[in-house]
């Protein structure tokens, strides 16, 4: 346990030293909030609507934070450690690579929650955004979204044969999903063709689910989103685990 705590502390330190992860997980979503808040203000999404722009944007940016840690930070860390044989060095200690990987997942989950917390505080202070949902549906909504996104990131690491190919997969899927899922701008602004494409992207379901539970929806209203995200978690997790076991660790 002492070793695992030390590994978590080290990974946390390294996360904060990595400008890319730190900036895109903790700073960039707040900048997006300021940018879109400056453009749209916190007006109703359409005339007469009782939902305001920032009430929709903040949960969507929360999914953006999940995307950064799950599809960029964690997979690239895993691929980098594997390519440089850093896991092998840890395997030559009582800690083993399993504990290192567990610490990496743990730290990325923690930083996701920190990023979401910062975003919620910024939203509340700047635009009086409130989370109307109860703690349980919000927690389940975030957990399903994180599980699906982290499983996808894990699969990309398992599919990629080195850091370059893993980066390519992660960047490709992250940016496509970021712009077409409603995580950066509300999907109600999308033309019909883009809406059709976005229906195939797991992140779309995460955005819909998190927006819904933040607005106070019960989970019963989001059965489809929960089902899709659950299926993505299982499929990517199982496929990733099978492919990862086949990798040469030495």
């Amino acid at each position: 346990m002492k070793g695992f705590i030390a590994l978590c502390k080290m990974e946390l330190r390294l996360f904060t030293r990595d400008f890319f992860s730190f900036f895109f997980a903790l700073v960039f979503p707040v900048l997006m909030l300021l940018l879109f808040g400056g453009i749209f203000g916190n007006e109703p999404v359409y005339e007469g609507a009782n939902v305001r722009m920032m009430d929709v944007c903040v949960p969507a940016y929360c999914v953006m934070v999940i995307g950064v840690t799950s599809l960029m930070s964690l997979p690239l860390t895993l691929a980098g450690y594997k390519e440089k044989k850093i896991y092998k060095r840890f395997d030559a200690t009582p800690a083993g690579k399993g504990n290192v990987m567990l610490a990496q997942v743990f730290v990325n989950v923690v930083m996701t929650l920190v990023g979401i917390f910062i975003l919620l505080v910024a939203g509340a202070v700047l635009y009086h955004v409130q989370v109307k949902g109860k703690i349980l549906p919000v927690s389940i909504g975030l957990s399903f979204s994180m599980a699906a996104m982290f499983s996808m990131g894990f699969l990309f690491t398992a599919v990629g044969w080195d850091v370059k190919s893993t980066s390519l997969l992660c960047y490709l899927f992250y940016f496509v999903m970021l712009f077409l899922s409603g995580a950066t701008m509300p999907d109600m602004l999308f033309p019909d063709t883009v809406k059709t494409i976005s229906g195939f992207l797991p992140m779309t379901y995460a955005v819909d689910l998190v927006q819904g539970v933040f607005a106070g929806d019960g989970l019963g209203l989001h059965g489809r989103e929960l089902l899709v995200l659950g299926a993505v978690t299982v499929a990517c997790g199982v496929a990733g685990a099978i492919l990862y076991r086949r990798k040469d660790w030495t």
Partner: protein
Amino acid sequence: MAEEIVRVENLDLAYKNVHAVKGVSFSVKAGEIVAIIGQNGSGKTSTVECVEGLRKPDGGQIRVFNKDPWLRRGEVYKEMGVQLQEAEYPLKIRVEELCGLFASFYERPADWELLLAQMGLDEKRKRPVHKLSSGEKQRLSILLSLMERPKLLVLDELTTGLDPEVRQNMWKSFGNIRKGGVAILMVSHYLDEVEVLSDKILYLEKGERQFFGTKQEFREYVKTRVPAGEWEETFSLEKLYLMITPKTAGLTMEGIL
């Protein structure tokens, strides 16, 4: 009689198209230094990686502290220190952070602050590991291998990248560590190092054991394989090795000039 720490019997290891280790057997006892020598690709590192539990053998049996290192790696590493041939560490981690991290893995870690000073790395403790020179990284790798006060040390190319003064210091240090009862299995291309440090030699050629025994027995082994007129009793270990090892084609100036 000294306790047997490592026992390897008929070790077999194959990669996709290469049979890297073929039926190799040897043992290492407490307070003994066994050096594995041989050309590049002769199976030295593959052999020690099986002993370290980092590779699963395809055949044969390995016992380290009477345990299978592949199946019981966590237990074996409580008493085994390892210095890998190539070791990388997380980017941006500092020397003292890495030492502290490794110390946290063990119940009774060595005094790494003292080791840092003895290894001449005290002034570099705040420096990111990736900014160390290759010699400094090598010293750090050696330090980390000593972190758990090991009963067995596996050293793959101990002094590669070290300057002559530090090399000699390392020889003295590891000589003293051996006197403390620690068993050492080492791989080296430096035959002067093997001559000074080792008690026994395991000589591999194309994955097969050619010889395992004391340095004196190695001398006798080579003597029987060279013409009488070419033999001198004063030959160094390096000379002996060069006399029996297969010759590789040297670089000629043809095609260059």
